[in-house]
């Protein structure tokens, strides 16, 4: 139905969406996934071009380095509850941009071009299948239940003896690994990278994939990524091109914003909640409702 490049992009975006899902599943909002993607992309590209590493080693390094960074950022922020992870991770993207622009090896603000194409279609499929298998296995596992408990109520989870900081850190580090993987695969697919590719817009894009698809069930993010990657292609067909004119920049931003807003307001569990009713997140307990600041 779609060309090969669009299908490849769908797979990469699905990986990114799963990476956001991992933290969302644990009730954490991380805005660093774009930064981890950038770290993966830059580490990979520099190793390929300047150290001449074989591709498998490059991919491995591009997965491991973001994980290390995630541990460093996650340890102080994840022992706290609430909005601190969102704030710290928002900052990480900015710091990454500053560092990349000022380092010699990274090509500064212009980025790096002429990266050899090493990513094959089957690499992407394999990566996606592995990621999907892992997130599927997560559901129903001890760790999966811990994530769910933390998402529903962190205080209760901790009272039950769940090591909340530890599990949140695991979710964050795994999510960094997936983002790094997507980053290095995309860099070796599209020839060129620039620091601007991994900023706020990319972070919000990934968040939108996960939220639109639904972050309470593992295939939701993939669905969201596939649909939203396809959307511009569909709108770009001859019939709609004149109506929408999506190339102009601000329209894309507007579309993303409106979709994200509508979904969070009217379909808080995403599109998947339309047909997975029996698996939906249970309605809040009476005690929880009493504790919430209900304002009508």
């Amino acid at each position, binding site marked *: 139905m779609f060309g090969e490049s669009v299908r490849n992009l769908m797979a990469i975006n699905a990986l990114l969406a799963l990476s956001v899902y991992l933290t969302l599943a644990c009730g954490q909002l991380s805005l660093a996934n774009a930064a981890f993607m950038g770290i993966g992309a830059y580490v990979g590209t520099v190793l390929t071009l300047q150290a001449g590493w074989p591709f498998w080693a490059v991919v491995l390094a591009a997965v491991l380095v973001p994980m290390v960074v995630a541990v460093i950022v996650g340890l*102080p922020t994840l022992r706290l509850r609430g909005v601190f992870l969102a704030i710290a991770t928002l900052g990480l993207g900015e710091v990454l941009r500053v560092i990349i622009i000022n380092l010699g090896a990274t090509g500064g603000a212009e980025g790096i071009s002429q990266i050899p194409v090493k990513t094959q279609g089957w690499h992407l499929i394999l990566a996606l299948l592995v990621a999907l298998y892992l997130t599927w296995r997560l559901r129903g596992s001890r760790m999966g239940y811990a994530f769910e408990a933390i998402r529903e109520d*962190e205080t209760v989870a901790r009272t039950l003896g769940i090591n909340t900081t530890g599990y949140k850190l695991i979710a964050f580090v795994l999510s960094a690994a997936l983002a790094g993987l997507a980053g290095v695969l995309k860099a070796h697919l599209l020839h060129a990278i620039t620091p601007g590719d991994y900023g706020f817009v990319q972070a919000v894009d990934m968040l939108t994939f996960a939220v639109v698809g639904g972050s309470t069930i593992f295939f939701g993010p993939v669905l969201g990524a596939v649909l939203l990657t396809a959307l511009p292609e569909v709108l770009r067909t001859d019939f709609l091109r004149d109506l929408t004119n999506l190339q102009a920049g*601000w329209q894309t931003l507007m579309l993303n*914003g409106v979709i994200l807003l509508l979904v969070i307001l009217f379909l808080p569990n995403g599109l998947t909640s339309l047909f997975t009713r029996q698996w939906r997140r249970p309605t*809040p307990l009476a005690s929880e409702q009493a504790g*919430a*600041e209900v304002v009508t």
Partner: protein
Amino acid sequence: MPDINWSQQILNGLFAGSAYALFAVGYTLIFGVLDILNLAHQAIYMLGAFCALVLVTGNVAGLGPLPGGVKLPFWLATILAMLVAGLLGIVLDRIAFAPLRGRPDTHFSGMISSIAMALIFEALATWFFLPQRSQFPLGTIPGGAITIGQGALSYSRLLVIVAALVLVVLLTALLRFTKLGKAIRAVAENPKAARLLGINVEAIYSFSFFLSSALGGAAGIFYGLAISRLDPTMGRTVELKGLAVIILGGMGSVPGAVLGGYLLGLTEVLSVALTNTSNYRDAIAFILLFLILVLRPSGLLGARRVREA
């Protein structure tokens, strides 16, 4: 050590710090009252600046001149733009936050819906005001400068410092000495008890958003004027700095936000002066933020324990 003009550096730091403080008090007010992080605050900051620009020049870059050829003096444009920014804040609350109140995940979904609103505001600004850099016309305010010691401070930068002082003092007085301020503090403390006492909680929420956004808009106007640079993404860098500032000062604390703002401004300037390069200036905010999260997560003036989200 390089030869440093200390009076100049301190003036630069006070200037940047005033802008950060003015931006951050709006953040911290909403966090204090509603316990939510409004990630669209940076977009309101940007729209406030553009609104004043439109009123001063009488022209909307992407659409054409205002009907009737209105051109206002800067002070009047600023007041009107602050009102518009405040009203936008109320709109933002009604669209992005009010429908989520009472949901168990309201903090979480509120952050996402405010990100969505930031995108929408930014898209609108790109449409109306075009993506490139704009600036206030020369002569919007007198171009001179005052000298203190060996440092010089242009009138536009002085205006940022004075405006921040005046607005923060007004806000503090409002919160501390008026009945309305008492109502805001009561709602911040406990919305349910406040309602039982006959306070219209929803109206207080709206008013808090109005205040916060009007101050955010003012920060955009004065800072945009001083650095002669307005563009639809101008809020993104200041957003991170504002967040660092409120964490530094203690979330929800107005004096903390002011203290944090000046600390960040001075630290940035000092780092530039000592390292002789401004390349890493924008990373300072993150480093401070990180340090304070490790050492004292409740912030310098944050009395309350770390809140649950």
